[in-house]
């Protein structure tokens, strides 16, 4: 790429607390918009609007660039070791606090679908917490992960390193549907 036209995302900055709060809110908004548009793209495809689906995918990507810029301004992008630690802590909070509390409320209010959605997420976060922990130990010793595929259930997010199971242990989806990375 020609250096004359080179550009980079906005840099970290630590000044006004109100501004930091706003950028954090904007990060939340952009992240949610991106996820909504990805879901909307699937619906547009299913309804026979492939070009509308493409628009949703492109705009979802644009919102991801905004989310990344805001995250950068907030100083939220560290080294890989720091990022793995941050990811591990986030998963741990969801497992230990957030989802159990939400699940208790959904049970109390007898919202069955909500309980399913919460259970799917909680189970997968336990996978993620364990995988991040092992990966962090490797990276602290300058070791990359092994070159094994990572497979994810497209229904519940169950995540495994290596072969997909015949059937997802969390939601029963056939292993052939798992997406490979």
């Amino acid at each position: 790429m020609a250096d004359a036209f080179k550009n980079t995302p906005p840099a970290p900055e630590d000044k006004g607390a109100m501004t930091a709060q706003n950028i954090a809110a904007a990060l939340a908004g952009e992240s949610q918009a991106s996820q909504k548009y990805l879901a909307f793209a699937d619906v547009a495809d299913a309804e026979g609007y492939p070009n509308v689906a493409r628009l949703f995918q492109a705009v979802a990507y644009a919102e991801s660039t905004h989310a990344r810029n805001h995250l950068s301004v907030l100083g939220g992008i560290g080294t890989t070791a720091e990022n793995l630690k941050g990811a591990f802590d986030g998963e741990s909070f969801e497992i230990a606090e957030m989802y159990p509390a939400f699940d208790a409320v959904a049970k109390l209010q007898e919202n069955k679908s909500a309980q399913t959605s919460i259970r799917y997420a909680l189970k997968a976060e336990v996978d993620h917490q364990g995988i991040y922990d092992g990966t962090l130990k490797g990276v602290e010793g300058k070791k990359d992960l092994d070159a094994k595929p990572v497979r994810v259930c497209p229904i519940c997010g169950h995540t495994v390193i290596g072969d997909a199971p015949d059937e997802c242990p969390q939601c029963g989806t056939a292993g052939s549907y798992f997406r490979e990375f």
Partner: protein
Amino acid sequence: MDEAFEKRLPNPEDLGAMTEESLKAAFAGESQAAERYLVFAEQADEEGYPHVAKLFRAISFAETRHARNHLRVMKGIGATAENLAAAFGGESFEVDEMYPAYGEIAKAQGNAQASRSIRYAVKAEMDHKRMYGEAREKVLVGQDLDARPVSVCLICGHTVIGNVPDKCPVCAAAKEYYKTF
């Protein structure tokens, strides 16, 4: 995808208000985790950890599944015409209210990087608002968009239908920085 596959998704549900609050918060959390992990993947690639990068991308995908499940339970996924109206509404709020307010505060507090991150976003949201409005007009009469490429500047999210400019009009990145959908 077959019916058995779709059947395992948690369905839309009339929710207790507190359960709805919980799912909204969980949707916000999963959406932000998905974006963070994509950024962390780029960082891991740069540091020479391609398999850690792959892991972050896989887990980001898992979080998008959780976000989509929560959104579905909250009845946040409609028909494409409804989704375009919701997308148009969201972009309008950001263009008319959110980013102008955040921009003023960032300026008052002398946050140059935050101001740049906000300016990049608001410029792109104007394009998105217009594109979603036009797409909705078409879908309301049963028409898809034209089959033209949609391209996005990976620095600032500038979004263009058709030819890519030599230089991004918002952030001046070279056209090699655009990703085409």
